[in-house]
């Protein structure tokens, strides 16, 4: 992790199908900071995270890491972030451990980190269990365990607390705090009042109320 890492978005616009989800979005995030994304359903929180993860091209504007546009070197960008979407990407016919081991191997993380990551999210007892026996909350924890096992500079989390109880929400908060303290960056979309370091927030506007005319007001700016 580099203490001078910086993520910037400039005038970002996103088209989903034929619908303009947001436009004119700009923010800057520095090492050690976490950005909290809030907003009503359909305001584009998931779309923004997906754009940051390279899963789609912005309709306008650009994303830059340390000043260099992400679109110029997508391979390098993929090496520096970890993304968690709505779905858990858990295979029911693999065991808990095998699920995590696959993602660790895919990202080139050391196998030694798997057991501690499972322990972090209280999944050690279920390590040998096929994932189809896990509850929804346990699957979410398994998906989050990736962040404990695989080192990355930028974390992109879409509603990570779905199905989690208070204890595990606290574990997540601690994990993010440790990540940011070590110089990492995080963008987290959430409905809960999560304690996130850096305190920055981005409230996305309700698209039903947004003016879609070209000269209309831009989306919210970073705090």
């Amino acid at each position, binding site marked *: 992790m580099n203490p001078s890492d910086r993520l910037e978005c400039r005038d970002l*616009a996103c*088209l989903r*199908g*034929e*619908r*303009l989800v947001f*436009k004119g979005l700009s923010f800057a995030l520095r090492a050690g900071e976490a950005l909290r994304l809030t907003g009503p359903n359909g305001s584009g929180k998931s779309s923004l995270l997906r754009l940051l993860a390279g899963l789609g091209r912005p*309709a*306008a504007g650009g994303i830059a890491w340390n000043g260099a546009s992400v679109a110029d070197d997508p391979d390098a960008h993929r090496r520096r972030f970890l993304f968690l979407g709505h779905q858990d990407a858990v295979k029911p016919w693999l065991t808990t451990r095998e699920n995590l081991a696959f993602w660790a191997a895919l990202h080139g993380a050391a196998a030694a980190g798997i057991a501690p990551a499972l322990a972090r999210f209280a999944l050690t007892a279920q390590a040998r269990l096929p994932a189809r026996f896990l509850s929804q909350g346990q699957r979410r924890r398994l998906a989050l365990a990736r962040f404990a096992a695989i080192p990355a500079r930028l974390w992109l989390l879409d509603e990570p607390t779905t199905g989690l109880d208070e204890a595990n929400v606290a574990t997540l908060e601690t994990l993010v705090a440790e990540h940011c303290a070590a110089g990492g960056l995080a963008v987290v979309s959430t409905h809960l009042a999560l304690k996130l370091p850096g305190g920055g927030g981005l409230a996305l506007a309700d*698209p*039903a109320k*947004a*003016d*879609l*005319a*070209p000269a209309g007001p831009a989306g919210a700016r970073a705090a």
Partner: protein
Amino acid sequence: MSARLHALANPARFGRFARRALPWTAWLAALCIGVGAVWGLVFAPPGATPPEGQGETVRIMYVHVPSAWMALFVYVCVAASSAGALIWRHPLGHVLARAASPIGACFALLTLATGSLWGAKMWGAWWVWDARLTSVLILFFLYLGHIALTHAFDDPARGARAAAILALVGVVNIPIIKFSVDWWNTLHQPASIIRREGPSIDAAMLAPLFLMIFGFTFYYFTVWLLRARAELAALRTRALKLRLLAA
């Protein structure tokens, strides 16, 4: 909303271009097809009298050959438009590809129909697995796949992108398919529709044939421009409707 404005600006230019070009293509099409058809169907010499030649039946060639040529040409146009959309991100690429594809499918169908009629007249069989006819049949399937894929998604942009990739894959495969079918055909030796008249098409037949080919090409450009303009108008209407609903 720079992305949408970009797309909307070009259509205005395109509309003006279409308005200027359409009368030309339409009149040229009418002229070439009119002269070519009358010349070919009435005045050009018939084939050698049966049983050595095909007699009057050979006149189907004046529709069959241009249709086959167009079926292939239109696919190349679809592939070129798709390449423009995917590689150079040209805003009109998807619209042009979507507009051209059904026209090509119709030409392919016309080729198959005239080929079938030709075969029925010549050998009493309503279909022969001639190398060219079989290749056009496969080309027809490629068109159907392209059209189906375009309309298979709730999001039209996704359909357009997927169909564009398919068009490029198809265009690369066409020579391979043609080569394979030709090879297969030599093994199984069914009757060939055009083989007999092939090398002995004399000059008197060539001129009306080329006129018909040009005529069909201009006809295709006319219909293509009309369809593309309609597609752009539909896109614009949808965008305006969305804006109205959201306000």
